[in-house]
């Protein structure tokens, strides 16, 4: 890699989750903010260590669920009272107990779809290209290795300095990744 290449960041590779989480904490303490940890399974400690503690997914799901419930009930209310009133066995047109089930199902349906679509959208997926895949050994991130990437857009980022910093952690390998 030449010096003129635009960098995505400097990437350190770790063998254990412990080493990754410890490095994340050190990096945060050293003032780095624009970084990401990569692991082959969910590692909540890593997310906490890089300072990502709250997700918007539960809130979105709640909103989706409420909208779904309102849609389900509203649809039945409108159909039965206005669009197509049907007298079934003399029951009131607004016979709310029989509307509950479809209201419930629509709540679940909307909430579930919102949770999935919301999660994917917030994650920026589907994303066909990402510079981290330029790392020659990154396929191991979906297998048995852990990576920490300090991104070039970070205010504290300095090519040589950041590299030295990561080499001082428990990393087995430190590499620069092109953007």
């Amino acid at each position: 890699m030449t010096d003129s290449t635009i960098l995505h960041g400097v990437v350190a590779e770790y063998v254990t989750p412990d080493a990754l989480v410890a490095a994340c904490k050190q990096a945060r303490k050293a003032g780095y903010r624009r970084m990401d940890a990569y692991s082959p399974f969910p590692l909540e400690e890593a997310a906490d260590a890089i300072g990502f503690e709250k997700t918007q997914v539960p809130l979105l799901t709640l909103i989706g669920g409420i909208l779904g419930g309102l849609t389900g009930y509203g649809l039945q209310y409108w159909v039965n009272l206005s669009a197509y009133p049907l007298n079934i066995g003399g029951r009131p047109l607004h016979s709310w107990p029989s509307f509950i089930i479809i209201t419930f199902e629509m709540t679940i349906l909307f909430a579930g779809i919102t949770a999935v679509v919301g999660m994917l959208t917030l994650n920026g997926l589907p994303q066909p290209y990402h510079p981290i895949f330029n790392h020659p050994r990154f396929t191991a991130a979906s297998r048995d290795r852990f990576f920490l990437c300090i991104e070039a857009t970070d205010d504290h980022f300095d090519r040589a300095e950041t590299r030295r910093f990561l080499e001082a952690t428990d990393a087995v390998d430190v590499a620069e990744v092109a953007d």
Partner: protein
Amino acid sequence: MERLLPGQAPVLTPGHTLETITDKIVSIVLRRPVTLGWVGGFVFFFGLMNVLLFAMAYLFFRGVGIWGINVPVGWGFAIVNFVWWVGIGHAGTLISAILLLLKQGWRNSINRFAEAMTLFAVACAGVFPLIHTGRPWLAYWLFPYPNTMGVWPQFRSPLLWDVFAVSTYATISALFWFVGLIPDLATFRDTAQNPVAKKIYGLLALGWRGSARHWKRYESAYLLLAGLATPLVLSVHTVVSFDFAISIVPGWHTTVFPPYFVAGAIYSGFAMVLVLAIPIRKFYGVQDMMTMRHLDNAAKVMLGTGLIVAYGYSMEAFYAYYSGNIYEFFVLKNRMLGPLAWSYWCLILFNVLIPQLLWIRKVRQNTLALFCTSLVVLLGMWLERFVIVVTSLHRDFLPSSWGMYTATRWDYAIYVGTLGLFFCAMFLFVRLMPMITIFEMRMLLPQSRVTSSEAAHD
């Protein structure tokens, strides 16, 4: 392995590492050659699936008159099979959602194929409401949409509740399954050698890279889906039971139906899980990941839900007598002593008596015995729906309107055909997708936990 006692059998046999787990599951799909046994099984079930297609084509050509249904018994095999298949699907959701919320680590290796089982079972179930309408090309009339006829569905009908419950269930199950697959598809993308396979798995993985931020949102969404699927799965079979319980037909109009339908669904679903898991773990050599502990736990769930079902039968019989309603009591007598008494007593034998063998540890530790018991339970649960549907309808209030029901060869052809569709899909699934959730298996490893004080929460 097989010699370990319950309590000692681990969920994952010791000695695995992150690499071996990944390699083992990935190699089943990406490296293992296609065996003659797989081809033979696939061709057989593919043939059965074509029986379904042929029978459906003839059905659309001639109409539902080719079935055994008649005037008192307007609901025959179609609804029996529908309820049976939906019920089988429920175990998949139970394993993936409810056991996740209850933090049962043993679910991790069986949830993926159990979810696939759910999807395929719901697909098989979905065939029946569609084709039983007589004019399936107008089935979209069931959905509320603005139309030139100016009519809307009848929202007070349990049949419409069913449309919403089952379509929501199918959608949420598919989402749950796919979301669970994304990280494993990324592993496949990164491991596959074949460029075409790499491209396809890569597309399906949506560019997943295992970022800590992504994982956090992912875990959050997955947990929420589990929380949503839990009441959903209970509601689906409750709504299915409302198809019966909301009516006033003797033998159907009873409040015990929702809980006992849900228990029965889980009962048959776990039986199907065992019927699939026992051969899969043997043929694919994954006994170290689907251990005897899994089989033992599944057998215990079967035993427990089977007892709830048995309680349902006894309450049904007791209230038929205790209510003092002569029509209810007649339905009971007719079930036990009438022309279809064989179906009732086979049901009691298959669903209540034979499964009591599962109390014995030796039976639970013997895969063949467990497999056979599960088959018996599947048959028993099918008979349960047959007894509920047919014996209640064929002799109701007025003796002048009594009748008899005999299934025709087309009824059987369609039922057997859906079995073909189901197993055909399962055969494709085990060869194309990771049948065990790789990333969740990694989490079972002791070395996956963050331990050192330096890394722990401060």
